[in-house]
Every structure is written in C-alpha cells, then in structure tokens.
C-alpha cells in the first residue's frame, strides 16, 4: 500500500552511511524519459526521499518477478526491509524506482533469518500493470542445495495423491499440512508471475489461499499443475480468483498460463484477464 501524495517525514529504517551504488548517474540517463525538470521531478524532495510506500511497492514487484524468473519453488523470497531508494517521475507520470532491499526465505521458520540483499530498478508506466523490472540479488541459497530442494519437492509432488478435491491450502486456521507444502510452494511460484503482471503503481497483491487444485500430471517428467488461487489486492481489498496452469520441472524454465476473474458483480462473466509466459533464461534488461 502506498500513499498517493508525499507524506510528512515518515519513520523508516535508518539510512546507511555508505553511498548508494552508482545509481545517481543512471538516474540522469533513463532511456526515453525527459531530463528532470519542473514540478514532476521535484515531487520528492531529496532530503525526505520518495514515499516509503512507493519503495515497498517497487520491492514487491521486483520480488514477484524475481521469484518467477528464478523458477525455483524451494528458493522463494519475501521482502524483509527496504534499505534505501530513490524515485523519479516524468511528465508522462511514468515512475522509475531504484532501490536496495533485503529478502528472506519464504519458507523460513520463525527465527531463521538469512537476509539476501537485492538491488533493483522498477519502472511503472503510470497506472498500467506489468512493471519493467531489472533485479539482482545476492544468492540466498547455495545453488546445489537449491537444486536438491527443488528435486525433493518435485518427488514429493509426484508422490501425492491427486486430485486434491475440495482442499483449501492453508485451511481456515492458517495451517498447511507438511505433506501439502510442496503444492503450496509450487502454486506460489506460478502466482508470482500473475502477481507481477498485475502489479501497478498502486495495486499490489498477496496470495491469500489456494482454493482448488484441479489436477496435476507428470508427463515427460514435468509437473503439469492446474489450480485456482485467491489473490488479495491490498488497496481495493478485493479477493480475485485466478485459474493458473503451470508446467514445471526442476532446472527448467517455468511456463504459466492464467485467467483471473475481474471485478465485482456476482453474475460477472466478463472482464477476465488472461496471460501467459515462459520464464526467460536470460536476465532481462529494460
């Protein structure tokens, strides 16, 4: 959630004494954008910095994108803290955010704290979704371990009885049966793609619940997973059901197709959103 106007000086994490990475130079040369002039560029005064909410928004977008691109359900990350950031907006209300933030392992037990550091540039095109993300992170999990964990998860999925009719994950009490954790993690991986695509300057998403698992098969050794997830959009508080179909096998790029129900009428059959993608194997630059 972020404010729509600049706030009074907000409390935030202490700014480190070390200078930002060599970002200031990049800020002056953002492709296609006008050089900073006039009120837009001065919207965030350098001494107070950009609204904290905007930095968090950018961090979340970067993380969804990162999780999807990494394609590893055992190495999912969540936001720990934003450390520093800077933003500029141009005349077309396009917003570029540069930031440094720390992450935690999604599956970490309480108390387990291994913070991986990331830096990212996120570009929001006014209120349009699908922000452009360029993100690099220090490795949180050693590569071989990650591959082992992915493979273990893969085997667990293959052994589970299927389909899981009528099962909600987590249950109403927030509990996920340990045997179903792999299902949740794989679902989160696929949902990351959807959440990244739908994130805008003002809208952001969390995965609230896995409300239906249709089926999975393992053809050619891959897991072909069809499920329904309930996304929670924070600023509108809406719950959005999305049907997601992903194909995954350890070490290979993830493919995702999805179909979300949009808007509010109970009789609604219109206004659906669709998308699909294959995770790129290269880092994407914008």
């Amino acid at each position, binding site marked *: 959630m972020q404010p729509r106007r600049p706030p*009074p000086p907000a409390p935030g994490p202490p700014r480190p004494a070390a200078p930002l990475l060599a970002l200031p130079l990049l800020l002056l040369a953002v492709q296609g954008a006008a050089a900073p002039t006039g009120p837009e560029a001065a919207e965030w005064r350098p001494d107070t910095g950009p609204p904290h909410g905007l930095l968090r928004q950018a961090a979340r977008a970067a993380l969804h994108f990162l999780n999807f691109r990494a394609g590893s359900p055992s190495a999912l990350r969540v936001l720990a803290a934003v450390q520093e950031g800077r933003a500029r907006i141009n005349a077309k209300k396009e917003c570029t955010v540069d930031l440094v933030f720390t992450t935690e392992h999604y599956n970490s037990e309480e108390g387990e704290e291994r913070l991986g550091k990331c830096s990212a540039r996120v570009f929001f095109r006014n209120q349009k979704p699908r922000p452009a993300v360029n993100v690099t992170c220090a490795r949180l999990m050693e590569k071989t371990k990650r591959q082992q964990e992915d493979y273990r998860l893969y085997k667990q999925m293959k052994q589970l009885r299927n389909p899981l009719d009528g099962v909600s994950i987590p249950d109403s009490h927030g509990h996920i049966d340990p045997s179903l954790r792999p299902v949740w993690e794989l679902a989160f991986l696929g949902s990351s793609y959807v959440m990244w695509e739908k994130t805008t300057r003002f809208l952001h998403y969390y995965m609230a619940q896995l409300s239906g698992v249709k089926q999975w098969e393992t053809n050619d050794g891959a897991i072909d997973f069809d499920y329904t997830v309930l996304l929670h959009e924070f600023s509108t508080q809406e*719950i959005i059901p999305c049907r997601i179909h992903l194909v995954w096998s350890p070490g290979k790029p993830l493919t995702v197709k999805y179909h979300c129900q949009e808007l509010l009428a109970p009789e609604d059959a219109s206004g659906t959103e669709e998308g699909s993608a294959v995770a790129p194997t290269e880092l994407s630059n914008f």
Partner: protein
Amino acid sequence: MQRLLILSVLLGAVLGKEDFVGHQVLRISVADEAQVQKVKELEDLEHLQLDFWRGPAQPGSPIDVRVPFPSIQAVKIFLEAHGIEYTIMIEDVQSLLDEEQEQMLAFQARASSTDNFNYATYHSLEEIYDFIDLLVAENPKLVSKLQIGSSYEGRPLYVLKFSTGGKNRPAIWIDTGIHSREWVTQASGVWFAKKIVQDYGRDPAITAVLDSLDIFLEIVTNPDGFAYTHSTNRLWRKTRSHTSGSLCVGADPNRNWDAGFGLAGASSSPCSETYHGKSANSEVEVKSIVDFVKDHGNIKAFISIHSYSQLLLYPYGYKKAAVADQKELDEVAKSAVAALTSLYGTKFQYGSIYTTIYQASGSSIDWAYNQGIKYSFSFELRDTGRNGFLLPASQIIPTAEETWLALQTILEYTLNHPY
C-alpha cells in the same frame, strides 16, 4: 443401541489398544433354524476372531457380528454359499470410531472456565460468546456484558465492560473483528479480555488504569460476517446486509462511519469490498457503536483493531490534512510501537491512515476523532502478507501479547493525560 455398542467397542479399543481398520459389522438375517445353526458354526471358528454383538438366537432375530478385516472374505463367501442374507451395517469400524473420538474430544474441549479455554486456536462465534459468559461469571465485580444492539441477521452485539466502579467514568473503547476475515483480531480480543482480569490487582499499570477508567471491549464487532467466514467464505470482510437493487451482499463497516462518508476512499458499488453502504451508519453494527459512544459521552480513547500489515494508524483517512493533534498522536504511536516491537522484534510502521496505508473514507477512528475523542487509533496486526488473513493459529498468542504492550501504552497515556 448402536451408540452404546460403539462406545463399548471404543472402551475396548482404549483399554486393549486394538485397531479396527477395515473391520465391518454385518447384520445377518437367518431364515430358519438350519441357518441359525450354520451361523453358530461360524461362531465356533476361533481363528476368524468374530465378535458377536448380537448372537445367533432364533430365525427372525438379526445377528450382528463384527468381522475383522482378514476374515471378511471368508465369512461373506460362507454366508453366500449357504444362502444366508446379510447387510453391511458398518463399512469400516475404525472410521466410525475416529469420528466419535473427534466428537467426544470436541465436546470435552468446550472450556468449562476461562482458565482451560484454548487461546492458541481460532474459535467459532458460539465459543467466543460462551467465553464471554464464563469471564463475566468468574469476575462479576470487574466484568459485565452489555448488549448494544443486534446485527443485521439478528445476532446480539456484545460489549464487555471492565469497571471497578464509579459512575460513567472516562472510558476507553476497543473493537476487534469489524472485518470478519481478520481472525487474529477477534482471537486477540479474547486474549485481551482474559489478560485484563488476570492483571487487575497484580500489574500496577493496568490496575491504575482500571481504578480510574473503564474499558469497553467489543470482541466480535461483525458477528454476521464472522459466522459467514466459518460457514461459507473464510475471506468475507463486510457485513451481511442486503442492498436493494443488487445481488451483492454487505457493506464495508469501516467505510460506513460519518466522517467523509462517500468521499474518495470507499466504493459506491455494492459488490465492492469497500462499499460504503447506502448512507452513513446504515449498517446496524456501526450504528450501535455510534449510539453507545454518544450516549456514554465520556469515551476518551477509541481503538479499532484490524489485520494485516503491521501498522499503527491515527486519523485522518478520508483526507490528507493532518489532525490538530497530529504531533501528539504521532508521539503516542511511536512509543506504543516501540513497546510492541520490544517483545518479539515485530516491526510496525505508524502514521496517519491517509499517508501510511491508503485513502479511506468513512472509517471509525476518523469519526471518533471528530467526535472529540482525541486518542483514536487503528491497528493492523500481523503479518505483512506471507500469511495475511490466514495467520497460523500458533501466532495468535505472540500477536496478542505484543499488541497488548502497545495498547497498554495508549491506556496509560490516556490515564495520564486527561482532557
């Protein structure tokens, strides 16, 4: 009759630690004396381990027998070969036992006192209302239950009053569960209620507060929504009121207050999660609190508790402009958050609703502040999205404990800064 038999089997199981997986209970109908004799033959075959609940007697009397899994085939073949009719009364004895066991445990689990109430799990509306009655019964001098109204669907709206006497003392209002899916809040409310009675007379701080102020606590502020999250949709947020002209149900009770009602920051669509309702106070759950607070006339702090995001908020939400008491509220929020974080390191941010979370019109604390209740705050409890509304039950008590420290800070501040 069956129940008695089941119970006796259960006892046997408990005592003998037997396992009845796959065992079946057959009801055998014997047509004549010859068939009765045949069944008696079966009885004699010890290796089958048959357990006759109702033994062979005469033709016309049903014979009930529990058949262990390994013997089922043999017994059925035998009966069929001799043309003896039977039906399967119980397909799997163990599952029936398991079900019963669960029911028994659930029955036992209904707390008989607030000391054996399970605070580390989520409860139903009925269980919470039972808890309220127990608490009052155990602490009649300190706690009383008020009904401030009835919900849209006719459920009572209960408020606990904690008071050591006096007449219309200055008081603090706390509500949890106005948004029904935010389950950690109702659960925390239950914990707070118990905490207050435990600490009064033992903890100097809360004792000082209650010796001068009253506390009003509404644990289930939206009981219709709460019941709905149990019965139908765990992620239901709003009330369950019907809007004419729409198939959609419910209004957002935290957009329904008379403070910037209908302005940006709420939706005019009945199908929206932030639908403000057809007019301010149209929701009876809201109106009941408004009437109560106005009639009381001496509320000095108003605290609404939500989840999730880990925030402590003060007014305004409906506009960007700072409240006149912004500086003071910010200081109070700062120290409340420091107290909260001190326990488990849980990080909270604080500020006005508008600048910290989003523009929201018609919210409870904006209304309360505009009524002159200076210390108006809203909490957003754990977590920050990893579990969201479906916060694991194991986090209920830590959440309640840390939040209580923040609440105490506000309560003490209110006590020490009368106005």
